[in-house]
């Protein structure tokens, strides 16, 4: 209740305060002198108001409403002037601070870059002394930035330098205690510098509500603990977006992680996890318990069904034919097209018989797809046996065109 009318209550409270303040201002304006009398830079404010209030007190200018409204207006004007001044000061201060920060960080970044290059190509001992005195946040940022771009002996040197400077301890501490956007940076650093000790700290972040931390932590865990890389999928409650699925796939390929058994995730309650598992099975042509995939043909989600059909088609799972035929009529048109692709694996008379039974109820565009995917000999048979209705003839002419 209070939450719903918060804005109205706030407005009424401000109005009340304004009226209260205006009563003080009225008293101030009615006085002939005040404590800053004589200081022209501020006294004009009192003089103008005082002149007008005096006029409103005389017989000719007496007006009840104006006597109440004028102090109110005057108070609002004073408050506005102060408000504008304060905001202008605040903006200028923030701008000044951000420029100063930018200059400082640019200088420090350049210095860090020079010292890092000195370490990689020059006097290592002298560079080590300088590196120990540098800002560690900038150092981590620069080292990780460079590590992402290079491989080979220089990348190994960079990694060993990271450990020599005890930056692994630093990032573990930062992952624990810094704010969320900094956590992301340090989790990323742990992933690239392979700080395996950070795994225990990062692991709980795979399930947090913040989608950015969650995704970075999941990718980091793939690199840091390849054996249990996808264990988070077992307990993930939140959706796994497609773009993150792509990142997970790329991380897996780049880190050369052993491919886990994705069939284990096909019975997950989280639909996005099932979709991810199906996509991975398809991409890696992974073989396993095919019954689990066949069971997904009757899944409640049409996108899962479609992906399951794609997997069946790519992996050539012949046992799925009966199930596909069973659910053909209940499917959406898009999925029926995928089912036709699956049925095209089985080029027997049985499939032809199945098509004959469903032909009349099937929509023309699906019929066209069927004709595209059957053997020419079977197509001829189908043409001969089926009634020459209007839609059918159109379909045939489209196919020949």
């Amino acid at each position: 209740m209070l939450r719903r009318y918060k804005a109205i209550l706030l407005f009424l409270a401000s109005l009340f305060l304004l009226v209260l303040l205006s009563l003080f201002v009225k008293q101030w304006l009615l006085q002939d002198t005040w404590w800053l009398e004589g200081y022209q830079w501020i006294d004009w404010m009192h003089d103008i108001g005082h002149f007008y209030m005096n006029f409103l007190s005389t017989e000719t200018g007496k007006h009840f409403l104006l006597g109440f409204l004028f102090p109110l207006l005057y108070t609002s004007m004073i408050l506005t002037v102060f408000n504008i001044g304060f905001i202008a000061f605040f903006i200028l201060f923030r701008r000044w601070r951000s420029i100063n920060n930018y200059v400082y960080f640019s200088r420090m970044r350049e210095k860090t870059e020079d010292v890092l290059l000195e370490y990689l190509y020059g006097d290592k001992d002298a560079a080590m002394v300088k590196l120990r005195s540098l800002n560690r946040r900038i150092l981590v940022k620069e080292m990780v930035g460079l590590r992402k771009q290079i491989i080979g002996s220089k990348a190994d040197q960079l990694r060993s330098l990271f450990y020599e400077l005890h930056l692994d301890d630093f990032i573990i501490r930062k992952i624990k205690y810094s704010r969320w956007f900094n956590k992301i940076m340090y989790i990323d650093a742990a992933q690239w510098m392979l700080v395996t000790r950070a795994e225990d700290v990062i692991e709980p972040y795979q399930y947090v509500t913040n989608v950015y931390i969650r995704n970075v932590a999941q990718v980091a865990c793939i690199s840091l603990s390849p054996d249990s890389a996808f264990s988070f999928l077992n307990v993930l409650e939140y959706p796994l977006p497609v773009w993150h699925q792509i990142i997970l796939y790329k991380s897996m390929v780049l880190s050369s992680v052993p491919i886990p058994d994705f069939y284990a995730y096909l019975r997950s309650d989280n639909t996005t996890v099932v979709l991810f598992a199906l996509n991975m099975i398809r991409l890696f042509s992974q073989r396993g318990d095919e019954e689990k995939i066949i069971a997904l043909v009757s899944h409640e989600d049409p996108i899962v069904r479609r992906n399951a059909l794609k997997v069946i088609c790519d992996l050539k799972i012949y046992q799925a034919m009966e199930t596909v035929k069973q659910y053909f009529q209940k499917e959406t048109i898009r999925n029926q097209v995928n089912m036709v692709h699956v049925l095209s694996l089985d080029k027997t008379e049985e499939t032809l018989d199945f098509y004959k039974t469903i032909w009349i109820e099937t929509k023309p565009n699906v019929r066209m797809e069927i004709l595209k995917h059957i053997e020419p000999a079977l197509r001829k048979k189908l043409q001969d046996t089926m009634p020459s209705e209007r839609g059918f003839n159109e379909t045939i002419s489209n196919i020949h065109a």
Partner: protein
Amino acid sequence: MKILICGENPLQLKMMKNELEQEGDEVRLSWSGIDLMAHVIKFMPDVLITEVLLPQINGFEFIDNVRKHFPKISIMVLSSLRSEHLIDFVFRLGANDFVFKPFDPETLRGRILKLQESKNSLLTLNYMDYVTSV
């Protein structure tokens, strides 16, 4: 050899410069996108190493412009792009070589030499064609 390196990450560029200068090449860097063409005109490099995702300008357009105006410059593209379509597009714009990121900076010099050798052999062939009018 005169080499111009354009990119976004100053540390990476400086590192490449260090690596190539050890072999006696003259290297210049540019990490601001606006005056890249001016750099090319002033320096007239033998080899241009550039990224596709450059700050402030379109890298594809830049490669296209350099190829149009300076056909003798060898262009080596350094990128983390993995799309075959885009890589093909980069070559069609006129790039001579494509290096995937992350890369080994120590092998860079070898790639450049190989690139120059292939360019020289092509030039020789062109020259012979011109003389014999074959």
